[in-house]
């Protein structure tokens, strides 16, 4: 029982991930302001990136750069167990760029909606769509 509890507490990255996804989902669903919804979408994206980086992380290991790799002192095999896995990092670099692109498109649409209807609140936009 004790080992089970400590096992749950040791992986606190994943609890933070769950909490951040819930915060972002709440903002996307319950908030009525468009910019607040976009902030919620970005929080969900960074939470997913946190999840992937947590998969690759190892306690007490170094970053994936081979030490003394440039010296001419003969080659020795690099042990993969000594390094943090770089594969999730490379995948998440793409995800960060995609998140900024979606943020730009979403904010451009929000500015367009504001110019058309004069407000950013969803309920007021719905009223003004139905008016004339």
């Amino acid at each position, binding site marked *: 029982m004790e080992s089970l509890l400590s096992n749950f507490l040791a992986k606190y990255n994943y609890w933070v991930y769950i909490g951040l996804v819930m*915060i972002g989902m709440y903002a996307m669903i319950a908030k009525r302001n468009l910019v607040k919804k976009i902030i919620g979408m970005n929080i969900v994206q960074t939470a997913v990136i946190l999840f992937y980086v947590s998969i690759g992380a190892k306690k007490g290991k170094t970053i994936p750069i081979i030490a003394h790799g440039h010296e001419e002192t003969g080659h020795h095999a690099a042990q993969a167990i000594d390094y943090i896995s770089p594969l999730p990092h490379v995948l998440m670099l793409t995800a960060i760029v995609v998140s900024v692109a979606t943020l730009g498109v979403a904010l451009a649409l929000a500015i367009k909606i504001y110019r058309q209807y004069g407000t*950013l609140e969803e309920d007021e936009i719905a009223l003004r769509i139905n008016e004339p």
Partner: protein
Amino acid sequence: MIWPVDLIIMVLVMICGIGAIMVRDLLGAAILFGAYSFMMCLLWAIMGAVDVAFTEASVGAGVSAVFFVAAVFRTSRRTKD
């Protein structure tokens, strides 16, 4: 002993995330979102993902915060929730 820094930054990430969606001013929400992104960047630097960390610091925190502030100045700061 590095783990308390880790935990403190995770608590700050949660606080900044909750504050960014709770504050009733869109400019304040944008600034809090920038703080959230920088805390996330510190977290990844601690976890050993340095390339993700500096991409997030420049693109995620810098450019995203500038986009938000520009969009808020072009529209309005008013929000009801």
